[in-house]
Structure formats: C-alpha cells, structure tokens
C-alpha cells in the first residue's frame, strides 16, 4: 500500500485537474445556464487534436499551441454559436440533453476518425521520481499540481483583479444591469466559453499522459468534475477549486482505505449528502427561491 503522503500528492494532482475542469463547468453555468454534459469529452478531444498535429509533423510545443487554438475554435466558439445560442432561450433541460448528444457524437467521431485504441501521450512535466526527506515523490504529480494551480490562480486573478474580470462577473451576475452600465455582455459570455476551452485543453494536456488518450476517457473525468463543481459550490469559482482538490484526494484515499470496488461510490455518497444538507455547496452562495 502506498504511503499516505504519496496518496495525498497524487490526489492533489488529479484534484487540481478536476478543479480546472470544474471551474470551466461553473463558468458556463454562471454566464449562460449551460450544464455541459460533454465537459468530460471536451477534455478528451484536445489531446487528440494535439496528437493529430504531431502526426502531421508538428513538434510538441507547436502541437500544443495548435491544440489549444483549435479547441478554442471548436469547443469555445463553435460550441457557443452552433449549440448554446440557438437553444439557450428554451430553458436548461433541452440544452443539457443536446450536450449529452454532443458527448456521444464527439466520442464516436474520435473513435471513427482517430482510433478506438488508447494512444500514449507525451508529458509536459518530467516523469521521474524525486526524493524529499527520504520519501519518494512522483515529480509528475507535483508538476501537474503546480501547473494546474498556477492556471487556476491566473484565472482567479483575471476574474478578481482586472477590469475585464469584473466585467465578466457583472455579466454573469446580472446581465441586464451590466448591459445598462455598458458592459459588452455578449462578448463577456463568449470570453467565458473561450476560457473554458483553454481550461479543458490544459486539463487534457496534463491528464492524458497519466491515463492515455482514449475516446472514452472523458466519461469518468466529466463526472468527477461535475461532482467537484457541485460539492464546492455550483456558482463559485473558488468553490469549484476546493471541490476539485477535495474530490481528488477523497478519490485516492478511498481507493486505498475503503475498497477499490467502491472507490467511485465515496465521492458520490459525499455528493448526495452535500446536496441534501448544503445544496449551495461548501463555499457557494444559496440561490433564492423564486415564486
């Protein structure tokens, strides 16, 4: 059995990736009431875009740039224009169903046009182990954690410290008033979709070297990010970060100490308890009931 420290580090690393995905998820919910059931597939796709670029002969760094740009176009712009915009005014549920169909379509497209097999993916952080005070720690976990946390901190700084971020928050909280005081709400909403695309591309870049690139790898990840977003607070960016880290650690610890068979059950039971007793999430604000 791995030591507690190893489990914590590995848990924090996967948790940081969950946090990235969960933050994107909450951003879409806040600005445009989109429950994106394809968020896991959104993480799966950029890895394949990067692999395709590498197969075409691009070096790794260029492939990363191409992958991020393509996912901004496909998962940000096209997703908003073609799917969300026409459906938004019809309520939450049809749009959620459409994203479920999108998830099926994306999985099948990757299976058909790329491969049904898992493909290896190069890591952007070193994969060897280092020794700290006599403990062997995976440098990859540490690197993933650092990169993901830097990204999340960058995003939080953008949201809280810049005028652009304030405008985005205003657009999310009260579009009508934001429009009155001159915030370009439409552009801000588009920006959140682009940020989500960058976040999922980054998550893809970090997680794929660990779990390999496979068309179905989004399912588990999407659900974990989902749970993280709700546990932390569906309407708060910092909630999603806390939720992601918590679920990552919980997942790894329960695999070691509860049972491998029911490891997936622990976060789910946690989720049910949270929703029933604190539906706004650990750090979330409660949503007022409208009559």
């Amino acid at each position, binding site marked *: 059995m791995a030591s507690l420290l190893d489990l914590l580090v590995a848990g924090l690393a996967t948790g940081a990736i969950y946090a990235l995905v969960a933050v994107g998820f909450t951003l879409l919910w806040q600005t445009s009431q989109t*429950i994106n*059931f394809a968020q896991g597939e959104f993480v799966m796709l950029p890895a394949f875009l990067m692999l395709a670029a590498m197969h075409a002969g691009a070096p790794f760094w260029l492939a990363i740039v191409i992958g991020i740009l393509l996912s901004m176009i496909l998962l940000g712009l096209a997703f908003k224009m073609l*799917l969300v915009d*026409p*459906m938004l005014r*019809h*309520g*939450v*549920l*049809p*749009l*959620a*169903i*459409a994203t*479920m*169909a*999108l998830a*099926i*379509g994306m999985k*099948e*497209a990757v*299976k*058909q046009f790329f491969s049904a097999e898992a493909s290896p993916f190069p890591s952007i952080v070193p994969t060897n182990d280092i020794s700290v005070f006599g403990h062997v720690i995976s440098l990859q976990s540490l690197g993933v954690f650092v990169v993901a946390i830097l990204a999340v901190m960058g995003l939080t700084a953008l949201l809280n410290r810049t005028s652009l971020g304030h405008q985005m928050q205003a657009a999310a909280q009260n579009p009508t008033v934001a429009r009155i005081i001159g915030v370009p709400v439409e552009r801000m909403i588009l920006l959140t979709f682009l940020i989500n695309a960058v976040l999922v591309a980054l998550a893809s870049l970090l997680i794929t070297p660990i779990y390999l690139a496979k068309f179905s790898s989004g399912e588990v990840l999407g*659900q974990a990010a*989902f*749970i993280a977003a*709700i546990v932390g607070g*569906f309407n708060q960016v910092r909630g999603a970060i806390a939720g992601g880290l918590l679920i990552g650690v919980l997942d790894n610890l329960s695999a070691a100490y509860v049972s491998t*068979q*029911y490891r*997936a*059950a622990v976060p*789910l*039971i946690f*989720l*049910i308890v949270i*929703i*029933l007793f604190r*539906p706004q999430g650990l750090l979330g604000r409660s949503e007022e009931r409208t*009559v």
Partner: protein
Amino acid sequence: MSANGRYLRIAAGLVVIAALIAIPANFNRYGLFILSQWAVMTIAAMGLNLTLGYAGQVSLAQGAFVGVGAYASAILTTHGWPLPAALGVSILTSFIIGWLLGYPALRVQHHYLAFVTLAFSTLAFLVFRNESWLTGGIYGISNIPRPHIFGFATNKPLPFYYLCLGSLAIVSLAVWWLIRSPWGRAFMSLRENPLRAQSLGVDTRRYTLMAFAIGSALGGVAGGLYAPLTQYIDPVPFNLSLSLDLLMMVIVGGSGFFFGPFLGAMIAVLLPEWLRFTQGYYLMLYAIAVIVLLIWSPTGILGILDRFLANRRTKTASALRAVAKSRLETVQ
C-alpha cells in the same frame, strides 16, 4: 376538435396497432428483437415521462430502475419463479426504491435533483457490478428463461414480441387513465407551480414521492421484461448512459406528451439501426440528428406537431371570425 377529427384519430390508432401486430409476423429474429426492445424502452420512457414530463421532477436514474427490475426478474426466474410473480417483485422493488429517491426531491429541485439522481444511478451500477453473490458481478446472469403465459410458450421471438407489445398496451392504458385522473392533474400542478398547488390543498409531498415511485415502477416493468428478452444480463447496459438515453428519448419525443415516449424510443432504438448502413458513422449521425432536432424544436417531435395544430386552429378561428365580421357588416 370536431367529431370527424376524433374518428380520424381513432382510425389512425387502430391502423398503427394492427400494423404493430401484423407486419412483424414476417420479421427475422433480429428485427423482432429490436421491436421488442422498442416496446420495453417505451415502457421505461413512459415512466420517466410521468416523473419528468407530467410531474416536472428531473430524474437521471430511470436506467438504474430498469436495472433493478431486470436483476429482480433475472434472479427470481432463474430460481424457478414464474415471470408474472417475478415481475411483481420487480415492480414492487423499484416502486419502493423510487419512493425513497423521491425524498431528495422534497428538498432540492431542478439541476440539484438531476445530480442526486445521477449519483444514485452510478451507485446502483456499482452495486450491480460488485455484489457478485447476488448479481453475478461482471459475469452477469445467463440462461434467463422466457415465460409461459396462459400455457403459451414465448421462447420464440415472435410470441415474446407479442408479450412485450401486450405489456406496452396494458401500461399505456394504465398511464392514459392515470394522467386523466385527479392524480394526473395533481402531477401537472407540481410541474406548473408547486407553491400554488400546495396553497390549493394539493398534498405536494405525497404526489412528488408518488411521481417518483410510479415512474420508477414502470422502469421496473421494463427491466422485468428486458431480462427475459436478452436472456442474459450484466451491469454494463444499466450504467448511466441508459438513464441519459431514456431522458433523451423523453425530451426528443416530446416531454409531457402522452405519445412522446413512443416516438422518442423509436428514434433512440430504431434510428441507429436504420443508420447502420453508414457503418461506423451511425451513432455520430444519430447524435447530430438529435442535436439538430432539439435546436429546431426544443419541445421534441410532438412539440412541432403541437405548434402546427395550434397554428391551424388559430387560422381557422380567425377565418371564422372574419366571416362573422363581414356578415355583421352586410347586415348593418
């Protein structure tokens, strides 16, 4: 609606029923399997339509109830129980679990409720997979017998198809009656305005739980038939994607319309089969078709029909009004 339209609708219904009975008689094994699957999935989707379409409670767990029903029926029939008795247990088990799942709905609504039921669905899958002493684990349960109904053996595909179709007919009549009863109106009042319903004296608590329990029980019926249909069950078909598929069927067909689940299940079960000639692309095309349909009509297929009929009615009414007005003017 004029008397003519009413007769027309009854005639159309009879033609469809006759076609469902007569045409499959020459189908091959696979065709009958797909049609039986359509009937079974329609029953499950009708249950969800009751919970979601009429009572307005989002559930992402209907697939889990199909699983509960299927396992109950598979375990009991392989131990020598007759199917009707096993089906009774399937229904009862999913009714009780559905009732319990209704309790979260008393506290949270909409997307939170969706997430609770989603978590339940995944938990149920884990139980199916891990409790191998009961469910056979990943190896599943094989050699599930098909029943004798009133002395008729249903081992062959055709009689079993008629069994599924007959069950669908019974369930349809029951649901038709239910949504026209005061219960149906109470369910709809939960969907439209729970606070107002409560102030008018509707026991919203009881009806919310009932909406879940009855919808889930229909999922149990579908599962109870699914097990003898495939004669082998393992946990995989009952994972979260079945729940999502059933939800898609209800929304695509038209949530809150009686015939919605029939059409939705037709699209989800039959459309992929019709698209098989495109080989690897069929599920992709299916996904695109669903997205395009939802963009075009978020209320589903029957939503299109509904809008068309409403349009025509407004046109007829305004034509009548114009005639009456011109008559009035000539009199003056």
